[in-house]
């Protein structure tokens, strides 16, 4: 009996983490067809935001500290959404309809973001600001010229190099002048600590088994997010527009739906959810430059298994993968199959956490043999793209 409760609870709690990590992806990938490999890094931004908010509240101190997590959730949502918006406007909008290229571009973005949190310091920020001012300022000045379109590409190339050089020199000079105050990295290459507020530490004891509060919190948070998205997509006017654009972009455009705005909004929403996920996982795991990398493949698998474009599929897939992962990894399967010796040997071989991962992925690939389009495939006739 206890085995069963533990199995169910742990399966759900692992599934909830997977689900919250995959939710944003399900929206971006499912609705827009954009493969966002920087999704993990958006989660990382959310986690770092949590760290910053936590430290801010520590400065203030007092009873307010215990509530920092709620502010952190909101802040993480907006920081990640903003980053997503910049990403969409700056890069992805040029790549719609070319999913494989967005994949490469977002991988590049993820590398940049990883290195960014490692080496971000006031020096770097000042350098960046100067660069942007120089580059876009000069570009604006040049755009007044009549032959702008002919020299555009060359101008950009030259300005980029020149601007980078100048801003680099200024930043380096400032760094030498002010020393550590400017050059010390904000976060550094090391992980940073996010400590859950004290009411989230510990857990409820139920039949000799402790349900951690953090897990319960994440399950609740995931539920709220799922319901929230469901209502947003299903009931709100913008949700309606998003669905319309998903189904038929050109027809929606003809009917006056601002597709560019819808794209930006959808992407920002998905990114914001990644931020929330980052905040949630910071309570369970590490917060560091590699945080995002640890989740990205799992999140994609959840979306693919669930069936693209279906929230309910993502939900079921996350729970299923979570439960199987737990059952295999904890050796419960080996325990259950006691009477049959070969089965026991088989499951014991896979009963370490790392081999469980092998097993789960192998199962996923096998499952896709049976249902290539996931648990809940999108219905209707589709034109191959």
């Amino acid at each position, binding site marked *: 009996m206890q085995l069963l409760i*533990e199995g169910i609870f*742990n399966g759900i*709690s*692992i599934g909830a*983490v997977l689900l919250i990590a995959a939710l944003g992806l399900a929206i971006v990938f499912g609705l827009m067809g954009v493969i966002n490999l920087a999704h993990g890094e958006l989660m990382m931004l959310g986690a770092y935001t949590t760290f910053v908010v936590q430290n801010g509240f520590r400065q203030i101190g007092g009873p307010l500290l215990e509530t920092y997590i709620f502010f952190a959730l909101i802040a993480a949502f907006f920081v990640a959404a903003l980053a997503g918006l910049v990403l969409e406007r700056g890069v992805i909008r040029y790549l719609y309809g070319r999913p494989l290229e967005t994949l490469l571009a977002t991988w590049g973005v993820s590398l940049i973001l*990883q*290195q960014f949190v*490692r080496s971000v310091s006031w020096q770097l920020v000042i350098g960046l600001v100067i660069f942007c001012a120089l580059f876009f300022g000069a570009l604006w000045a040049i755009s007044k010229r009549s032959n702008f379109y002919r020299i555009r590409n060359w101008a950009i190339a030259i300005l980029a190099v020149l601007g980078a050089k100048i801003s680099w020199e200024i930043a380096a000079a400032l760094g030498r002048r002010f020393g*550590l105050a400017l050059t*010390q990295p904000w976060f*550094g*290459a*090391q*992980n*940073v*600590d*996010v*400590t*859950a507020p004290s009411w989230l*530490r*510990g*857990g409820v*004891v139920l039949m000799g088994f*402790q349900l*951690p*509060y*953090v*897990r319960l919190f994440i399950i609740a948070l995931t539920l709220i997010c799922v319901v929230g998205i469901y209502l947003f997509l299903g009931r709100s006017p913008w949700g309606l527009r998003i669905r319309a654009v998903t189904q038929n972009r050109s027809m929606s455009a003809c009917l006056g739906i601002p597709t560019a705005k819808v794209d930006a909004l959808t992407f920002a929403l998905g990114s914001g959810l990644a931020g929330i996920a980052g905040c949630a*996982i910071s*309570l*369970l*795991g*590490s*917060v*560091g*430059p*590699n*945080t995002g*990398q*640890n989740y990205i493949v799992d999140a994609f698998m959840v979306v693919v298994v669930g069936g693209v474009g279906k929230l309910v599929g993502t939900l079921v897939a996350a729970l299923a993968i979570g439960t199987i*992962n*737990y059952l295999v*990894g*904890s*050796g*419960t399967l080996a325990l259950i199959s006691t009477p049959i010796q070969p089965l026991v040997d088989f499951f014991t071989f896979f009963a*370490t*956490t*790392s081999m*469980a*991962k092998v097993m789960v992925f192998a199962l996923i690939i096998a499952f896709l043999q049976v249902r290539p389009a996931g648990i809940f495939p999108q219905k209707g006739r589709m034109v191959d793209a």
Partner: protein
Amino acid sequence: MTRRLGRRKFLLYGSATLGTSVLLKACGNTTTTDANVAGSPTATTTSAASGDTIKVGILHSLSGTMAISEKSVVDAEQLAIEEINQAGGVLGKQIQAVVEDGASDWPTFAEKARKLIDQDRVVTIFGCWTSASRKAVLPVFEDKQHMLWYPVQYEGQECSNNIFYTGAAPNQQIEPSVDWLLENKGREFFLVGSDYVFPRTANTIIKAQLEAKGGTVVGEDYLPLGNTEVTPIITKIRQALPNGGVIYNTLNGDSNVAFFKQMQGAGLGPDRYPVMSVSIAEEEVKAIGVEYLKGHYAAWNYFQTVDTPANQKFVEAFKAKYGSNRVTNDPMEAAYIAVYLWKQAVEKAGTADDLEKVRMAAYGLSFDAPEGRVTMNPNHHISKVVRIGEVRDDGLFEIISSTDGAVDPLPWNQFVADTKGFACDWSDRNKGGKFKLDA
């Protein structure tokens, strides 16, 4: 039509390549010798010390998964180099460090080691963290008869003439900590580790040791590097140790954070489930959060709280250079003393270029390190004090046990049947890296 064309094309290409290859093979033999002359400078004749600087290499991961740990080791090495340079350098010459990024990728480590040796002509290299990266560069160093200073505690079972190990061998960290646990905490052990070579070897040693000393291993599990879902492991721990017991933790990096956070969530606290870690130092405590670690243990040779004048100086200098919120830890200290030991060896040998001389000069050197007095042994490891620390409220360690004097290193483990009775001595040509001790 097109098919015929295709086939004809194939024939053409095939014959062309075949022709060239035959041609090349014919001439191949003569060219190889030419190539050798041009392509392979003899390794030991390095010329870095010419002029008024001495070039040394620093080879750690500055990007990728291992950057978390290795970046601070680079900081410590650069601090030592800066200090030495300010005090007048080595043999009157300034040290110039060439920093390369191993990118957490083992082939890259091998490539960069070769580059530092062949192209930059450095006289020694300080580097590597993971065993895998050390194993990757080892053939390069042996091939070129070059010198590496390796600053991290590791699993032993290796003794190369070309590497100086300034971290702990297993008998200077793992074995004493297991003894301490057996004496003070209990006889039932659960082993948790990351899925790579150090934890697996460490656990092999622990199992052999426990068998010899009357403890038992009730379970073990390995997490993939970077994995943050530890629920299944916690279930296993609870099933294997329903009434509490010792957990021996060789997890690395990110997984530690998840492990301790989720242990506390599941109600497995240090009172009943004390965790002994060998990869958690001051930096990691800071990254995990003191709240989750309070009351758990770690075994090292150095803690920031070690009370020696040399340590005070080291900590102050480090904070002044990198910021007051930074902490020092064991691998950083080991990297720091590696630079100083190398400097001493070079001064004793009177040359930085003749690596054989420097190597011989290094044996028997002592240095007042932050951790206390250390001595370089002829087996390329150093004698050091072993300490057990308990995490306290400010994130530093309370030293609750330490050995009376420095413990001599044993690279070949004496509990594992395969290496029992073996030792290493490079000062004697007849003995070398692995010889059988007389019983």
